[in-house]
């Protein structure tokens, strides 16, 4: 599903690489944590997967496509198969919960009847049934992140990228969000989650990939945040 082979990413000539010879293979349906200090390269890795950045050297395959060779015009269609969630939610303040989620379908030209059918299902999946007509500022942080997750998965992507999705949330709310992501994972979606949240990682016992200064220093199938306890 995601396969990195000795991938290096240098942002500015002469600067320290943001990613330095990273090799990684995330199979379909897996739930994988990316951990590491700020600036260790987690976000860079995610933006390479989404093809927001070009890799500098190495090869990377996402959904079977060599992303370094993907032509510009193929990118939009490619991204429809990848959902993204961020620390800052990125909701549209003027739109309701329903409209925020529907937006992701509208802008890729999905028909109205498909939107009317799919959005309630997805809101149900993330635990927001009954709050369709709220606007973001009427929701708690955790609820806003659930809206963002609903928007990310409403087009049924094969991969969900989550960049510190619980970074702004308290521990209990974070657990709720983690539950939602696990539910999404159970529907068959590959989930890659960059996080600083020790508690969540230790509790989930999922695959953990640790980055330090752009290198993979640890890759455990069922790990803890800080390595084997």
């Amino acid at each position: 599903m995601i396969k990195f082979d000795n991938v290096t990413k240098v942002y500015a000539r002469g600067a320290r690489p943001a990613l330095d010879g990273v090799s990684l293979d995330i199979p379909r349906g897996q739930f994988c944590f990316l951990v590491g200090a700020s600036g260790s390269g987690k976000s860079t890795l995610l933006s390479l997967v989404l093809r927001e950045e070009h890799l500098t050297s190495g090869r990377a395959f996402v959904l079977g496509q060599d992303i370094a060779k993907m032509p510009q015009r193929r990118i939009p269609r490619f991204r429809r198969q990848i959902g993204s969630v961020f620390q800052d939610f990125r909701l549209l303040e003027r739109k309701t919960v329903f409209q925020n989620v529907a937006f992701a379908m509208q802008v890729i030209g999905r028909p109205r009847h498909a939107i009317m059918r799919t959005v309630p299902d997805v809101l149900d999946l993330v635990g927001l049934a009954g709050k369709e007509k709220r606007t973001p500022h009427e929701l708690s942080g955790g609820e806003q992140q659930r809206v963002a997750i609903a928007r990310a998965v409403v087009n049924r992507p094969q991969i969900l990228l989550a960049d510190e999705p619980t970074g702004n949330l308290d521990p209990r709310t974070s657990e709720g969000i983690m539950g939602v992501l696990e539910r999404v994972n159970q529907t068959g979606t590959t989930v890659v989650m960059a996080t600083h949240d020790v508690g969540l990682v230790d509790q989930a016992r999922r695959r953990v990939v640790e980055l330090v200064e752009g290198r993979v220093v640890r890759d455990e199938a069922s790990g803890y945040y800080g390595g084997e306890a």
Partner: protein
Amino acid sequence: MRLRFVVAEIAHGFRRNASMISAVILVTFVSLSAVGAALMLQLQVDRIKGDWYDKVEVSIYLCPEDAVDQGNCSGGEVSADQQAAIKERLASAELAPYVEEVLDQSGQSLFEEYQERFGGTYMTNEVTADMFGPVIHVKLTDPDKFAVVTDAVGAMPGVLQAVDQSDLFGQLFDLLSKVRLAALAVAAVLGLAAILLIATTIRLSALSRQRETGIMRLVGASNLFIQLPFMLEGAVAALLGSVLAVGALWGIAEFWLADWVEANFAVMMGSVNPADAIMVAPWLVVAAVVLAGVSSALTLRRFTRV
């Protein structure tokens, strides 16, 4: 769904950016009005010039059937012999070096031209075909030497009047072409302003909707779909400007200019035609689309790239 979404986005942009959009509409309006005025002026000049002006230098009007005591028409309608004599004179050794070409026009044809030009004004009241005699148009080898020909044939029997065409309208056309040049200069400057203004509007609009476009990119909306609302926003504003321009040009021609010219400048009578505004309308619409297109091309590549 897509169309509705795009229309809603444009409407949203218009509301959010109302003052900028108004500025775009006004600037394109004035700019395109100047372009339209220049085009209409050209049509007007063409109409005054008629079919012969650019082709010949001297027109020898011969006596019509209904000749009164004008020119050398004491003998009534010009006879075939008189016409032949004039032709002979033009072909003589004395005049031949100055004459490049001689063209005949019948009185009937002249009458029709007149009707076309002044149709609908009082100038055609009580005018009949027998008031128009044949014309001999002369193209000169050297346009400045018109006097040689007019002097030579002007006094011949059967000649109503030998006219140097450039003298008739020369100064008027000179003035009109200067006015046209001024209008084009205004149009160029304001056109540039319109392009910059539209570009700025698109840029502001794109910046104020960065979160939307960011999400659109993330979920895989196509470039065209992301950019279309911005492009159309500029285009619709420019098109509104062009519609206003056409309306203004027509209104000025219809309600003000035509009457004013008729009252003050007999020689330009009937040359102002409000319908010209409709004729130039497609060009103004094209110009508006070009303005908006150039602006979009300048801006969007930078602000909504994948």
